[in-house]
């Protein structure tokens, strides 16, 4: 096939970038507010908190929550990878094959790890 008419990979990466961006716009401020403000403020007198090991495992006992967690980590990674790649280009770093492979490769690795780890999670 003529190289001029080869289909671009860009739509796939743009889709992942867009999905991650929408997810971040919808819930990321609330999530960071939780881990960075609510958790330290709501810590009980005995040191018990919202992020206690058994409590978090309990929250993640529902399979839907595990899928959502792994999916969120993966989409945020793809969003960041795509934007960092273009940011490098804007700042004068040539966005060649090597940089593309490192950006999207890192996102793919993060996705794989998130999926694998979520499967390995112990039940409470």
């Amino acid at each position, binding site marked *: 096939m003529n190289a001029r008419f080869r289909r671009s990979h860009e739509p796939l990466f743009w889709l992942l970038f867009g999905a991650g961006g929408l997810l971040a*716009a919808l*819930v990321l*401020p609330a999530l960071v507010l939780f881990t960075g403000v609510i958790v330290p403020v709501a810590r009980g007198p005995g040191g018990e908190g919202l992020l206690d090991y058994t409590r978090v495992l309990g929250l993640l006992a529902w399979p839907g929550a595990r899928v959502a967690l*792994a999916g969120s980590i993966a989409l*945020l990674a793809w969003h960041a990878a795509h934007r960092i790649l273009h*940011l490098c280009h804007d700042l004068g770093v040539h966005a060649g094959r090597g940089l593309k492979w490192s950006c999207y490769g890192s996102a793919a690795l993060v996705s794989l790890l998130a999926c694998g780890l979520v499967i390995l999670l112990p039940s409470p």
Partner: protein
Amino acid sequence: MTPLPTWQRGMRGWWRRDPAFRRYLLREATSVAIGAYALMLLAGLGCLVAGPAAWQRWEGLILSPVGLLLQAVVFAAAVIHAVSWFRLMPLTIPPLGRPGRRLADGAIHAGAWAASALCSLGLLGWLVYGA
């Protein structure tokens, strides 16, 4: 025939030319913080699998002064990201509404922020009161 001499505009320090360029860079740079937060969550997931001791170390790390400072940066980045993402939404989504009668930008913004509020409250409710 030799090609005509052309002059190429230098791109060095282009962001210094216009405040809009710097706002653009700020918006794009939020991705670095978002990526870092994704790695923080991935590390937490790994520690959760590794066991209670590892999990406690991770929790101590994100609740340390440095961890909280970094999360403050991520929070600012997340808010800047959300504001710019929703502001650009009328341009990035397919046209909504009947042909010739495009949905007003204000309606799209209002809908996006309502959806964000709903999702955020749902998530926080589950994280605080769930289980």
